[in-house]
């Protein structure tokens, strides 16, 4: 009798469980860069380090941006806004903090409080203690910190662009078209085994 009650409770729980079409802990990414991230999504609460390409970082932010997430770019005074828009970042939900100065870590922490995807170029001498605090903050708030450059603490996902091929440019004619980037992928967990992928942006 008691066992039957427990079984029916199990059934009830199964019925009452909200159905989700995707993993709630993953933010969707655009198809063009889906090969780069394990599970084809950005895991909430992680740090991604992109080395050698701003475009890849912007393209990673495009998927969540299309799904109503906010994006912030901290310490990236040079970021190409037109490129961000072309790659799919919604400018209505993009905030820029171009010059955080010495407050870099505090600004990134504050922004992680309310914004899902934070792009940031770290200062030359980032203290490991600050980096650890930001990792904890990202995990706590469920945001994704995409660092354009190296990350002292070892990022959860590390994307290093090693090769670039351009189409469309000739010898004195044409113009730059699409590019094929070779990316080396490393990191922790699902990304621990190093591999290589190519993306076309």
């Amino acid at each position, binding site marked *: 009798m008691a066992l039957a009650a427990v079984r029916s409770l199990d059934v009830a729980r199964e019925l009452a469980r909200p159905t989700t079409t995707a993993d709630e802990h993953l933010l969707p990414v655009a198809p063009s860069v889906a090969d780069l991230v394990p599970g084809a999504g950005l895991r909430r609460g992680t740090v991604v380090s992109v080395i050698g390409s701003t475009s890849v970082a912007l393209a990673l932010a495009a998927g969540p941006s299309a799904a109503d997430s906010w994006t912030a770019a901290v310490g990236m005074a040079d970021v190409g806004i037109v490129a961000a828009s072309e790659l799919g970042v919604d*400018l209505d939900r993009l905030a820029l903090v171009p010059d955080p100065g010495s407050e870099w870590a505090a*600004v990134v922490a504050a922004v992680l409080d309310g914004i899902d995807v934070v792009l940031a170029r770290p200062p030359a001498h980032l203290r490991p203690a600050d980096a650890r605090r930001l990792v904890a903050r990202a995990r706590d708030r469920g945001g994704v910190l995409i660092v354009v450059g190296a990350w002292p603490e070892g990022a959860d996902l590390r994307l290093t662009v090693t090769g670039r091929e351009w189409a469309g440019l000739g010898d*004195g004619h044409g*113009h730059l078209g699409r590019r094929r980037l070779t990316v080396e992928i490393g990191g922790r967990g699902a990304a621990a085994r190093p591999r290589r992928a190519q993306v076309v942006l």
Partner: protein
Amino acid sequence: MSATRTLVVWCPDWPVAAAGVGSAAPAAVFHANRVVACSAAARVEGVTRHQRRREAQGRCPDLIVIERDQARDARAFEPVVAVIEEMAVGVQVLRPGACAVATRGPSRYAGGDHALVRSVVDAVATVLPAGAACQGGIADGVFAAGMAARHGDGIVVPPGATPEFLAPFPVRTLDRPELADLLRRLGITTLGQFAALSAADVLGRFGPEGAAAHRLASGLDERPVSGRVPPLDLTVAVELDPPAERVDVAAFAARGMADELHTRLSSRGLSCTRVRIEAETEHGEALARVWRHDGPLTPGAMADRVRWQLDGWLAGTARTRPSGGLTLLRLVPEEVGPADGRQTGFWGSAAAVDERAARALARVQGMLGPDAVQTAVITGGRGPGEQVLLVPWGEPRPEPPEAERPWPGRVPAPAPASVHAAPPVAEVVDGDGRAVVVTGRCAVSAPPARVSIGGAPWADVTGWAGPWPVDERWWDPPAHRRRARFQVTTSAGPALLLTVEAGAWSVAATYD
């Protein structure tokens, strides 16, 4: 209980008048590609509100097109309010272009309602921008007085006769399109028919908003209890140190105040429908202005009104401008009512996400200053950096241009991911090691073979295109720039957008 006897002064087509265009010229003010206001001359040609820009220009080819700027409207209206304030105390701004004042005292002083309307309208006419007009009307309640002012100049509805005056007007004048649409389909076309329904039935069928509209149609004030003075502790004040002389600095402080006032009110289940904005300057001047709103003021709407008012004071004419910076700002809720609770979604809605982001960004502004957080809008321009307009977070974002216009010389897509604010110096040489130059006729001396950026080792050029000449502002000698652009791929690193100007090369952008 009848409504307060009120004078409303209304300036027709205010957004057009505020832009300095007289009513004789065909002009229209646009927002989001739709007409929001037009001059009398444009109306004669068939331009109406909500019309698309193309249609409006089709009907009236020489239409003067003006972009909406609410700060400009408010700034131009400030002298009007100031002149009415000299004749009657307690002026409430309804919106830029219309304001209301209770007539009980001023009427006696002026010698009757008719005399009051005449003298106020005459006084206002002296400060109006050229070509603008104004009309006044008196009735019981702000809504009816507004209808009287719109209906014709100098209409005075006798006390108690307001319901009869309102009865023939169509229901759309209530300015609640959904309700008016429903009423029309129920066969109720005039305010009189609507007012004839029982108040209890209207409340039961249409809810609090319908009940408020019913009160208006019946010639009563929108809310049953008018002018309930709230307890003192709801006032929000901020001291500005150093004193604020610029509108954006003061407006930034005001935004936080509006949020705080809203939090204080909503924690008591209240909403504010009339707010007094007070300011003190370093020379001890005290400024105050009352803004009234038809519905509850949201934090955003309140912050907008504060910014408009600050704009009116700080950027106004010498007549109204204070002599020093503002040292104190105060928001006093003058009239509060129960908040018609609006339930937000149980699972965080899109609005909740926006609010969370707004809070985080406001905190960053608190750390670094209001200009430190920006949003970007893409506008016209040739260079990848020139196409972008940066707007401080919280300021209104301009509308992006409706259509893509051709910009000859624009670099084709894809755009570079890094646009350098301070372009690094580069050296470009041909196969023989001679510097590559571009002639006045835009011919290249020799194909570029090697590139060095900022003294770094030479990299071989693997592909290049250009030159794309850019001859900008040739009509303005000091700002005239003649440049040529090249796209270059090299054996090392990402593709580059190079610029050569007067023989000097630099890296304008990087396709990294």
